[in-house]
C-alpha cells in the first residue's frame, strides 16, 4: 500500500475539509471513468455534488465513532478516513482492497475506522448503527453512531423501525438523510407526502434541516446533534438538501440518459459545495488560488498513486474464494458447488 498521504497537521482544518471534498469528487470521477472504460467491472453509484454532507458530518466525529453507509458510499468512507488506494483496489477487485475483493463498491468497509459498511439494500445499515450505539451506551463509552441514507430510504420499514429503536433506547445516534430529491428517477415529493423532517420528528427524534451543499452549515448542525447524542441527550436527525450530479448509477454498458430537467441540473451544480468553500476561504483571505491549485495537485497525485497501487495488486486466488464465509469452517461447510 502506498504510504498514506496524511494532510499536514498544521493545515487549516477548513482547508483539510476542502481537500477531503476534492478528494471525494476526484475519486468518484475517477471511478466513473474506470467504470465507463470497463476497468471497474460493475456499476458504481457516485455522489458527486454531495461531498459536503459526508465531510461536514464526519468532521463532527472522532475515530471511535461509527458510521453506516449506503449504495452511494465512497464519500462517507473517505470522509471517515478511508484510504483511497485500498478503496480503488477494492473497486478493481484486488486482494489488497478493503474487503479483499470480496465486496466491491457497495460493501466497502473498514471496521477499525468505524466504517461499518456501505450496503446494497436501502435503509439496511441503520439498525446496525443502533446496535453499535447500544454497545457504546452500555459500556459507558462516549461514542456516537451515524447512519447515512437517502431521501428514498425514508419509506423503508427497517429505517423507520430504527428511528423508534433509537428514541426508545435513547441511543447516541444521529441519522443523516442525504436528500438529493430523487430515488433513482422518482422525485421524493411523489412518494412522500408531508415532509421528511415531520416524519422523523414523529418518532421523537430531534430534527434539523440544513443546506447540504454548505459544508460549514452541515458541520455546525452535525456538531450540535453529535454533541447532544454523545452527552446522552438523545438521538438526532439531520436532513441535508443536496443534489447528485451524475445519473443514479454508472456502468460500462449503459448509456442511461439523465432524465432530470436540464435547468434543474444546472441549478444543482451552481450550488457546488467545493467551489463554495474555496470561494469563501479565498474571499476571507485565508487561502489563495495558488494554494488551492497545490492542494488539487496533491489530490491528483494521491489518487494516481492509489490507482497505481490498485492496478499493481493481485486479484484474489480462486482457491481462496471460500475464505471468510465463516469465522469457523467445518467439514463440508461452506458447501462447494460439487460434492467432495
Amino acid at each position, binding site marked *: 500500500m502506498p504510504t498514506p498521504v496524511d494532510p499536514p497537521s498544521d493545515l487549516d482544518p477548513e482547508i483539510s475539509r476542502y481537500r477531503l471534498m476534492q478528494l471525494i469528487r476526484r475519486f468518484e470521477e475517477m471511478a466513473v471513468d474506470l467504470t465507463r472504460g470497463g476497468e471497474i467491472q460493475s456499476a458504481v453509484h457516485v455522489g458527486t455534488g454531495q461531498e459536503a454532507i459526508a465531510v461536514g458530518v464526519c468532521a463532527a466525529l472522532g475515530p471511535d465513532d461509527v458510521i453506516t453507509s449506503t449504495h452511494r458510499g465512497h464519500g462517507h468512507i473517505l470522509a471517515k478516513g478511508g484510504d483511497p488506494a485500498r478503496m480503488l483496489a477494492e473497486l478493481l477487485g484486488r486482494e489488497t482492497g478493503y474487503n479483499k475483493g470480496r465486496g466491491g463498491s457497495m460493501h466497502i468497509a473498514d471496521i477499525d475506522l468505524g466504517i461499518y459498511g456501505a450496503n*446494497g439494500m*436501502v435503509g439496511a445499515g441503520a439498525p446496525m448503527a443502533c446496535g453499535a450505539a447500544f454497545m457504546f451506551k452500555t459500556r459507558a463509552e462516549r461514542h456516537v453512531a451515524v447512519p447515512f441514507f437517502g431521501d428514498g430510504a425514508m419509506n423503508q420499514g427497517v429505517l423507520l423501525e430504527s428511528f423508534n429503536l433509537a428514541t426508545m433506547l435513547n441511543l447516541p445516534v444521529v441519522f443523516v438523510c442525504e436528500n438529493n430529491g430523487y*430515488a433513482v*428517477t422518482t422525485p421524493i415529493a411523489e*412518494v*412522500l407526502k408531508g415532509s421528511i423532517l415531520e416524519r422523523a420528528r414523529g418518532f421523537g427524534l430531534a430534527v434539523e434541516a440544513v443546506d447540504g451543499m454548505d459544508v460549514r452549515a452541515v458541520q455546525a448542525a452535525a456538531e450540535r446533534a453529535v454533541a447532544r447524542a454523545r452527552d446522552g441527550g438523545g438521538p438526532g436527525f439531520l436532513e441535508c438538501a443536496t443534489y447528485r450530479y451524475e445519473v443514479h448509477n454508472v456502468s460500462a454498458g449503459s448509456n442511461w440518459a439523465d432524465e432530470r430537467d436540464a435547468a434543474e441540473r444546472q441549478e444543482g451544480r451552481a450550488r457546488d459545495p467545493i467551489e463554495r468553500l474555496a470561494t469563501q476561504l479565498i474571499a476571507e483571505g485565508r487561502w489563495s488560488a495558488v494554494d488551492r491549485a497545490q492542494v488539487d495537485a496533491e489530490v491528483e497525485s494521491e489518487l494516481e498513486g492509489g490507482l497505481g497501487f490498485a492496478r499493481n495488486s493481485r*486479484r484474489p486466488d480462486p482457491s481462496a*474464494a471460500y475464505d471468510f464465509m465463516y469465522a469457523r469452517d467445518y467439514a463440508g461447510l461452506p458447501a*462447494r458447488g*460439487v460434492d467432495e
Partner: protein
Amino acid sequence: MSRELNYVDAIREALFQAMEADPSVFMIGENMRGDIRPESRGLYTRFGDDRVIDMPISEAAFTGFATGAALAGGRVIVEFQVSSLIYPAFDQLVNQAAKLPYMLGGQRFLPVTYLIMGAGAGGGRAGQHSDNPYPYFLHAGIKSVFPTTPADAKSLMLAAIAEDDPVAVFAPVGVYGTKGPVPEEPVVAPLGQAVVRRPGADVTVVAGGPHALQAVALAEKLKGEGISIEVWDPLSLLPLDKAGLEASVNKTGRLVIFDDSNRTCGFAAEIAGLAAERCFHALKAPIKRVTRADMVIPYSTPIETEVLATVDRLEAAVRAVMA
C-alpha cells in the same frame, strides 16, 4: 417465427399485450414512470397513472398492497428490480400471499405476478445483487417459472399473469442479451411443462436459463466423444413436470443437475430427491449436483467464477457419471 426479439423486449411485449387485453391488469414497481427499465419502457406512457404505479422503496408494503388489490378484484403485476428486493417483502410473500387463499378456505384466490428481474450472478454484482432465490419460493409453495429463451419469457410471463394464483417469474440476467424468435400473438405457455432442449441417450442434464444454453453447448461438444446428453429444461419450477423428468431419467439412467442457486436445500436437491425415489431402478450412476456453492457471491471475477456453477464442472460431472 421469423421475428426475433431480445429477451427483455419479449417480457415487455408480454406486459403490453396482457395490459391491452385485460383492463383489470395493472403493474406496480419502483421507478416505473422514469421509464428507464427496458422491460417496462413505454408502459407508463401507454397506460397512465391508474395502471402503472410508481411505488416507494417499501417492498413489504407494496407486496401486501398487491394482495389487497387482488382480493378487491385486481390482477396485479409486481416488479422487483433486483432479486434480493424480495427479502424485505418476505413475510408478505411467503407468509401472507402464499397462505392467504388457503387460510380463507378458498373464498378468493390471488391473481398476482411477481416479476423478479436480475436473478442470478454475473459481472461483479456482488453479495447482495446476485442471488437466484427461487428455492425460497419453491419451498414456500409459490408457483415459479424460469424462462430460458425470449419466446419462453413472453409465453411464461403471459401464463403467470393469466394464472389466478401468485406466480413468480424469475428473469435470469445471464440471458438478457440473447435474441430469438418470438411469436407476435400472445401465446400462453402451460405451467408445469418442461422442454427437452436437446434429446440425448446417455445422461440427463437438468438446467434452466443460461445454464440450459451452456448445457446444450456442452452436449454438442461431447457428442463427438460418443457421450449423448439430454438437456432437460424445467421452465416451470413449480409446478414441475415430474413425469417429464422421470421419463428422461428412466431413459438415460444418469442424472446431473446443473443449477445456479445455492446448493443446500436448493433446486438441485429437489430434483435429486425426486429421481432418487422415482427413478432408482433405472439409475446406473450416482446423481450429481453441479450448483453454486453455498457462498455469498464475491465481487472479484476469479473468485466469483469459482463459486458459481460452471460448465467445466458440469463437464467433469458428466464424464464422471459416464465413467
